[in-house]
């Protein structure tokens, strides 16, 4: 019985429900609170979205409670903010406390509750857009025109009291543009736009944001038509400036292009290269030595027997590391690998191994002991190509007592094979470019020449007019040595072997005087009478004196100033007669071209061997 009743009730209920369902009625769907925001940090509003209403009128209620409290409150105002919203006025708004809010949808069929939403009002501030946006074109007298945008903060925001701090942003574009230009305006309520195109219509929006909140929506669109005839002064000015500078540039380019050379010569005068009168560099390059030589008045190379009178004394020079070696045969000078031995007059090699640029001291005690041997040290240059007749007119060789010996600078600290008869304590590195170097002088353009001789040497080099060899048609060529690098006076040394071995203190040095200069410009040197000079009128290969003389410098008249060993010179002092009294210790000689035909190996020295060959025929 009971069962029947209950069954009937349930059945009825289900039937009713069925009927209702068939009618489309259901409990409401779950509402969703989709947004809560505060426009001015003093009130806030929450909006929800209703769910399905189930076909029945549905009531929505919003309830909340605050953190730490148990009391549940209901929404104070459902209307102010529109439908499906709840507005919390100042009275009900507390910053920095969390609201837990929930919305209930109620209808006849049931109730649905939304999820809880946690809200801290301080973090949901989203102001309204700025208001009263105005656009103006301003044209100041002294400046470019600009577009001036002004606005005011949204109504509710209280920026004056400092409760709310707003920052603004502006965006604009002209009608046809695709993208907006967005500018941040900070906390100011105006903005100047400087770059725009006249003749277009521009659209402007403004929005704002609190310091720790969310951006507002963009304000309404405001537009402004920019007049086409707006004078954008700056552009005109810049165009004018650009044209002017272009013109100036063109003028300068033209000037440089056409007059560039002259200007450059004015500004930077070229350094004159070495010139030798009568010397044609082109002949050199073509390799036609004959013509070359004839240009110099040389009669050919090697010198013929006519030139018997030509005595060319080779310099045998022993270089040593320490140039000071030269003067001392005594133990005073540190033997720098050079042994000074008693010159052996008979030993006349003067060539061969001793000619190598390497230190000969060990090997060749002899050769340079021979006063009669003149060896010309090797020279590193391309002199072999040069058959130029190096003519150095020279005054009678004067070997003065005072030896200021200039050392020709050699390329390196190559030990010279020729010790210097050097009294002074200069430090000639390698004095023995010497003859070779001098010989190079007329070779002219070769830079080596220039590098070798000292300026002073250059000055001293002269061609004496006095030396006119009879029968010689060609005047002694003046040798102009140009552009000698200025070096210290000690840079170069120049030795002439003398009859006497300079290394023997007892030996006196001889003056060498120019015997004659043959038509080829070859020099014959004759030693002046000396005590112990073994003189040979013609320097022979086998008898080449080994006395040394250093070329001190080249005088103005192109006279080579040779300096003998000072010791020897002491004795000779009275005898020395200089053409140029001004020059002390000057002696001069010229080497025949043959002398200067030096094999230039890797050394700075002339290779006497090469010379002796050539002279063998000349000198008996």
């Amino acid at each position, binding site marked *: 019985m009971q069962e029947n009743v209950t069954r009937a009730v349930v059945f009825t209920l289900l039937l009713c429900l069925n009927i209702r369902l068939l009618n489309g009625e259901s409990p409401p769907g779950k509402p969703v609170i989709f947004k809560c925001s505060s426009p001015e*940090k*003093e009130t806030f509003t929450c909006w929800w979205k209703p769910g399905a209403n189930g076909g029945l009128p549905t009531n929505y209620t919003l309830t909340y409670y605050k*953190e*730490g409290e148990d009391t549940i409150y209901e929404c104070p105002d459902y209307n102010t903010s529109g439908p499906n919203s709840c507005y919390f006025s*100042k009275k009900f*708004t*507390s*910053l*920095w*406390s*969390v609201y837990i809010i929930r919305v209930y949808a109620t209808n006849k069929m049931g109730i649905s509750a939304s999820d*809880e939403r*946690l809200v*801290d009002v*301080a*973090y949901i501030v989203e102001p309204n857009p700025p208001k009263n946006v105005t656009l103006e074109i301003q044209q100041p007298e002294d400046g470019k025109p600009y577009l001036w945008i002004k606005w005011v903060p949204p109504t509710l925001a*209280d*920026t*004056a*009291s*400092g*409760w709310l*701090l707003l920052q603004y942003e502006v965006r604009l574009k002209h009608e046809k543009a695709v993208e907006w230009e967005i500018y941040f305006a900070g906390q100011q309520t105006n903005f100047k736009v400087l770059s725009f195109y006249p003749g277009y219509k521009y659209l402007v929006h403004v929005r704002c944001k609190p*310091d*720790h909140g969310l951006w507002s929506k963009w304000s309404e669109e405001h537009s402004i038509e920019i007049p086409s005839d707006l004078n954008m002064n700056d552009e005109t000015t810049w165009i004018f400036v650009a044209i002017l500078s272009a013109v100036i540039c063109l003028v300068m380019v033209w000037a440089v292009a056409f007059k560039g050379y002259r200007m450059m010569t004015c500004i930077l005068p070229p350094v004159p290269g070495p010139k030798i009168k009568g010397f044609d560099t082109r002949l050199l390059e073509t390799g036609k030595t004959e013509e070359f030589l004839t240009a110099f008045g040389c009669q050919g190379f090697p010198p013929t027997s006519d030139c018997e009178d030509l005595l060319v004394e080779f310099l045998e020079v022993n270089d040593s590391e320490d140039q000071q070696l030269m003067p001392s045969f005594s133990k005073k000078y540190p033997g720098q690998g050079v042994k000074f031995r008693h010159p052996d007059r008979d030993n006349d090699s003067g060539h061969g191994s001793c000619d190598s640029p390497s230190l000969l001291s060990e090997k060749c005690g002899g050769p340079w002991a021979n006063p009669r041997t003149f060896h010309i040290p090797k020279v590193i240059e391309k002199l072999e190509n040069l058959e130029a007749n190096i003519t150095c007119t020279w005054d009678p060789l004067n070997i003065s007592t005072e030896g200021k010996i200039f050392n020709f600078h050699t390329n390196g600290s190559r030990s010279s094979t020729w010790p210097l008869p050097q009294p002074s304590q200069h430090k000639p590195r390698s004095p023995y470019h010497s003859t070779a170097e001098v010989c190079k002088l007329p070779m002219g353009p070769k830079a080596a020449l220039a590098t070798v001789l000292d300026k002073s040497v250059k000055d001293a080099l002269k061609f004496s007019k006095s030396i006119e060899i009879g029968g010689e048609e060609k005047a002694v060529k003046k040798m102009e040595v140009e552009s000698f690098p200025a070096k210290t006076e000690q840079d170069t040394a120049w030795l002439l072997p003398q009859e006497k071995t300079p290394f023997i203190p007892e030996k006196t040095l001889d003056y060498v005087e120019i015997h004659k200069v043959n038509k080829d410009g070859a020099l014959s040197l004759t030693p002046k009478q000396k005590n112990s000079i073994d003189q040979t009128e013609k320097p022979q290969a086998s008898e080449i004196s080994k006395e040394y003389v250093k070329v001190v410098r080249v005088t103005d008249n192109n006279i080579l100033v040779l300096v003998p060993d000072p010791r020897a010179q002491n004795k000779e002092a009275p005898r020395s007669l200089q053409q140029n009294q001004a020059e002390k210790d000057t002696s001069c000689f010229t080497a025949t071209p043959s002398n200067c035909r030096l094999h230039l190996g890797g050394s700075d020295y002339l290779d006497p061997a090469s010379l002796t060959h050539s002279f063998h025929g000349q000198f008996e």
Partner: protein
Amino acid sequence: MDGKRQGSLLLLLLMSNLLLCKNVASQPMCPSGSSCRVSLRDLFERAIILSHYIHSLSSELSQEFDAQYSQGPEFFTQAMSMCHTASLSTPAGKEQAHQIHQKDFVILVIHLLRSWTEPLSHLIIEANHLPKAPDTLIAKAMEIQEQNQRLLEGVKKISKLVDPEIIDNGDYSVWLGLPSLQSNDLESRLFAYHNEFRCLRRDTHKVDNYLKFLKCQIAYDGSC
């Protein structure tokens, strides 16, 4: 008669001098120290820059922690608990802010700043024991701590200028949250950290808001 008059005049002069002296003494134009040179506006500007920066860092810190250590949606919702500075009665709206005396307001700010000195140092130390290498979090916390000290000094200077006789009795809210940070249960520990960072974020926002409000009220006479 003359003597009496003179005597009374002298007395009068003496009294007036004393009064004047007292007035002068009680109102020093500028207390000793270099802060006197910097005007109130500049001090407020500097303080606001610091407070703004501190709050930005705190927001980042809190959000990064939640992102890194959350173990599910709404995981930290249930973690809410009271902040240790809740006992401090701070204005919760503009009207309430208007009602507080300026002097007291400044003291309140100092109180708030001082309340976080100790918790920050503990947070930095204990955070090293968090599981997932919280180096950036610790770095941010250290930066907040450093800037907080500077801000405290700055607001103290402001208080001296606002009212030279201001009495700062050194109050601050005591923090008792250390045991929670050292809890064995990871979840409790995470909740504790979440809460601390949440409270830090809130309090730094308060300080920032108050200082910006006070700047306009004090340095610009209520109208920025």
